[in-house]
């Protein structure tokens, strides 16, 4: 587990500094959108390209753009499970797409800088429904502030414990990697796994079974699972 990427990933989940009522600087966001525009269109006349158009993205169910756009199985499953695009979920997705949707085809490494993400989202928010600034509306939703103790990041898990815990995964996830109906968890980088577990634990990812399973795992237990997955690298 690389410490830096774990910290970056967890920062998304626990939140960082408090957010202002406004999302960010939309003008800067327009420049940053240059990173996205190779695949995504937004604004008047935007159409699906390599990626789906982004008009009306705020409040939209994941994988719900029509016009024959073909999503990955993973994103369609997340949408069916109830994933909706709001500030919190979009921020997590742009920060590390695979943390939120493991099998996404969006070929983007992620924007590490929270400020840049905020600016980009401020720009994209212009192309979703108004009014935008009432307290309960998407753009002004506050992120939760939770301090992540250093100890959690430094935690080294017990791989034997992780092996026992992993047996619970195999009641549903097939050990041969088949992914009909339930996603495969084989051949998965350990850190993606840990980030995904925290995303379920924090209810960023929508699936109720996984929210329950991850929700009762302590930080030590997630570390133990990660340690076990490392041993079978």
């Amino acid at each position, binding site marked *: 587990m690389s410490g830096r990427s774990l910290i970056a990933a967890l920062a998304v989940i626990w939140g960082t500094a408090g957010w202002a009522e406004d999302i960010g600087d939309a003008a800067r966001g327009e420049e940053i959108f240059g990173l996205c525009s190779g695949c995504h269109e937004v604004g008047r006349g935007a159409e699906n390209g390599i990626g789906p158009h982004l008009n009306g993205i705020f409040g939209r169910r994941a994988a719900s753009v029509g016009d024959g756009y073909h999503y990955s199985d993973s994103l369609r*499953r997340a*949408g*069916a*499970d*109830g994933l909706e695009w709001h500030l919190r979920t979009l921020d997590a997705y742009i920060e590390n797409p695979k943390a939120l949707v493991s099998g996404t085809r969006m070929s983007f490494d992620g924007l590490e800088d929270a400020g840049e993400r905020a600016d980009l989202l401020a720009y994209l928010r212009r192309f979703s429904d108004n009014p935008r600034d009432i307290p309960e509306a998407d753009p002004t939703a506050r992120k939760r502030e939770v301090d992540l103790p250093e100890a959690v990041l430094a935690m080294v898990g017990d791989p*034997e*414990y992780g*092996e*026992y*815990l*992993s*047996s*619970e995964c*195999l*009641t*549903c*996830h*097939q*050990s*041969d*990697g*088949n*992914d*009909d*109906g*339930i996603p495969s*968890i*084989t*051949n*998965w*980088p*350990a850190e993606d796994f840990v980030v995904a577990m925290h995303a379920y634990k924090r209810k960023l990812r929508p699936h*109720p*079974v996984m*929210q*329950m*399973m991850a*929700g*009762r795992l302590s930080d030590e237990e997630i570390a133990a699972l990660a340690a*076990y*997955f*490392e*041993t*079978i*690298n």
Partner: protein
Amino acid sequence: MTLNRRAFIGTGAAAAVALSAPMVRAANHGKPKVVVIGGGAGGATAARYIAKDSAGEIEVTLVEPTRAYYTCFFSNLYIGGFRELSSIGHSYGTLATEYGINVVHDWAVGVDNDAKTVTLAGGAVLPYDRLILSPGIDFIEDSVPGWSLASQNKMPHAYKAGSQTELLKAQVEAMPEGGLFAMVAPPNPYRCPPGPYERVSMVAHLLKEINPTAKILIADPKPKFSKMALFQEGWQKHYGGMIDWLGPDFGGGNVSVNPDEMTVDIDGAVEKVDACNVIPAQKAGRICEMAGVMDGNWAPVVPHTMQSRMDENIHVLGDATNQGDMPKSGYSANSQAKVAAMAVRGALLDTKVFPAKFSNTCWSLIETDDGVKVGASYQATDEKIAKVDGFISQTGEDSALRKATYNESLGWYAGITEDMFG
């Protein structure tokens, strides 16, 4: 890092090989011996995990009468026409060849708790250091007046999957146009799956296709049942008018049957029926009585290890147990089996034993692509297996979510059967 099947299965073996010599090993009988009775979700999983994780250091014998095992879960889907019977049948070949488990197809007919031996109907006597009982359920005699095992071919229970399930489906298919199907539902606690209410949904689905004017009557001693709101919403939506549910307020708890006449008496009103599914009250499988681990109808267990409260050398799993809050499902038995397997290895090989964790999810199919689920996580307390957290599908969910839920159940079926049978 990669997590492939071989690595996943192989790691436990490698870890166990590295262990120092087992602490607990009687000098005169070689490797420690575990006998598992019952090859369902509890027994097959326990046998497989003990064999896999001890890498040959424990001799595992699995006693199961049938060579072809049909899972109770998804047997209702066969009735509805969503699965072939063969697709829910499994053999024990992989457990024998890949995991070195000694699979014996015979009935266990006796347990000597002091000598620690199991006697089989064929005469063999199997010594054990730990015995795991996972026999499932038997029926309580006379719980439905007029019905006995002798009448199971006229009014099938279909509560052990296989020929009984085939028979029930054939009888539904043979109903005259506009005929009546009755179900005598069981009192709590009962094995589920095969859930009675999913079964009604599947019978309704079949009748809607082949006999749409037929009716379904459920006589139920319980005032409410699991996922009741979801089923009632689904029945109204898909099968409006076909299904009548009579709870105890309408005499559903005062039922007798006459299999020869094909009649059902509900609180004094006699109905002529064309097919009838009687699901009697249940108790632990008979071997639990022979082993002296019963208290009332079920076998009480220590939640941390699934050990019998009567005999510390015996672990009991699944439907047969009285453990607390978990339902009597295959998923529960599979979950309990992993806790027991860890405890048995710990006792016999001195491997680490971690805090027990349990979980359960039960999916049900109401109509094509209309799946629902309920589930919970549990922890071991000294008193019982106690529910920690849970979830249930909501009424009014959209069709995409219901379809995803059904697809998920297909994935789960493949996952758990691979986890049981290798």
